[in-house]
């Protein structure tokens, strides 16, 4: 540290800089070792290092492997650890506790003191967290923007608390929360009117009716492996703003009848639709969807054995904007259907096709001849990329 001689005889050093100048200097340090050294200099600089931290995550977050959760490489995070960490880093915006399987609800109670600036919270696989924990999160983090609590043992009451307190929520992931039902979802859609993206994969009790009257801001919904009902599908699209919809592996008795409602007009802005393994989707639903969703760019129909000639012809004729189509393992895609696709879908760029038992190699060659602009890929995409902000 240099000592500068200024007129008047007083000398200045770096210690005379105010805190926000030091914070600016700290923000330019891009090596972790430099940041550590900065913090070790004196208490004041340690304090600056702490208040500059915006994100926190643990090594257990990157090792979440459900079959071997009993083996951990480091100490498991408990309530005491969390309270001291939150007291030290009081300006956190993003906190990831995923993989902290031993953390109890009382650990989240510290968020009531220190969580006011938190915007992103990840509680995936926190098996010790229940409704009480979500209540702490809600009361302590009013500016929460995105939360994920996949595989937590929470009920509708926890979800209600969270929705009432954190009305500015944009994204939520509650996949594998089997106890959540439509009542909780209804609270969520009523209170969080800016909600953009919801993931309810494998939530067995959700039939879809909770989404009735949701705001048009809801643009992305992942509801794969849910037991959706016919009215539920109508309610899901009732908001009018849906752009990305994933209802693959539909596990219900409706047998694909309700899916024609997707083409009824409320989902006219749909861009990506994933119907993988909805084996009972029939031609009438396909015709309705291809007519009613003119902006569709990607459509996954792998393992949809119910789609026959009239369905493929309808897709070819109506889906003018379709860029990517998945038809892996479709049992009823025959040469005539492939020919229809070859003659339609002017903007098609990628066709994922493999193991379609009724397609002959000569039909494939004919397709490649006439549609050299289309790339035929053999892999089966299990989950179509749906954009998320957070997770």
């Amino acid at each position: 540290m240099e000592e500068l001689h200024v007129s008047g005889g007083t000398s200045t050093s770096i210690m005379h800089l105010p805190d926000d100048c030091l914070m600016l200097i700290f923000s330019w340090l891009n090596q972790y070792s430099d940041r550590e050294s900065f913090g070790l200099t004196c208490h004041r600089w340690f304090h600056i290092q702490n208040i500059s931290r915006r994100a926190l995550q643990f090594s257990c977050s990157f090792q979440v492997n459900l079959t071997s959760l009993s083996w951990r490489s480091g100490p498991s995070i408990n309530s005491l650890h969390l309270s001291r960490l939150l007291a030290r880093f009081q300006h956190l915006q993003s906190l990831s506790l995923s993989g902290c399987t031993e953390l109890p609800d009382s650990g989240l109670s510290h968020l009531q003191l220190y969580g006011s600036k938190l915007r992103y919270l990840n509680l995936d696989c926190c098996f010790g967290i229940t409704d009480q924990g979500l209540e702490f999160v809600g009361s302590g983090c009013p500016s929460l923007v995105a939360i994920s609590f996949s595989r937590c043992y929470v009920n509708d009451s926890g979800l209600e608390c969270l929705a009432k307190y954190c009305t500015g929520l944009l994204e939520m992931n509650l996949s594998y929360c089997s106890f959540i039902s439509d009542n909780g979802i209804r609270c969520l859609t009523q209170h969080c009117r800016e909600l953009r993206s919801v993931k309810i994969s494998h939530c067995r009790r959700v039939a879809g009716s909770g989404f009735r009257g949701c705001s048009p801001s809801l643009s992305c919904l992942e509801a794969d492996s849910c037991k959706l009902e016919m009215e539920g599908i109508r309610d899901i699209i009732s908001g009018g703003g849906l752009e990305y919809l994933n209802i693959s592996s539909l596990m219900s008795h409706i047998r694909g009848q309700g899916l024609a409602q997707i083409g009824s007009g409320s989902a006219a802005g749909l861009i990506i639709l994933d119907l993988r393994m909805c084996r009972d989707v029939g031609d009438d639903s396909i015709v309705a969807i291809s007519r009613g969703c003119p902006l569709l760019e990607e459509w996954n129909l792998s393992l949809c054995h119910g789609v026959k000639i009239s369905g493929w012809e309808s897709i070819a004729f109506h889906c003018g904007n379709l860029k990517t189509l998945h038809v892996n393992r479709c049992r009823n895609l025959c040469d005539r259907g492939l020919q229809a696709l070859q003659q339609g879908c002017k903007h098609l760029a990628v066709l994922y096709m493999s193991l379609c038992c009724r397609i002959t190699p000569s039909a494939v060659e004919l397709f490649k001849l006439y549609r050299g602009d289309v790339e035929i890929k053999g892999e089966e995409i299990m989950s179509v990329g749906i954009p998320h902000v957070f997770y």
Partner: protein
Amino acid sequence: MGEARGRVVSRLYSCYKCGCCVSLHDDIVSKQFQSSNGRAYLFSHAMNIKMGPKENRQLITGLHIVCDVFCLDCGENLGWKYEHAFEPTQKYKEGKVVLEKYKIVMDM
């Protein structure tokens, strides 16, 4: 069970996860089988399944060579198929498929 016109259609069993039909009720040989998870049915024939590798397995009735069978669409393990039986009293099972009762649902 049948259609309204009077044609009798066979009852189908399907994979509980994805609904892929795997067997007919008419093909049931025995309903008295046991798997590690409960009751199972012995079918003379099953369709839309893929076989796993053959292995020796000690079952309740003795040593057999079996291979696991999986649903063709979703890959769910539905049961096993007898490839070879070492005891002469168990020879009748060879080539037949056991499907676990809780893994299959009855369709119309």
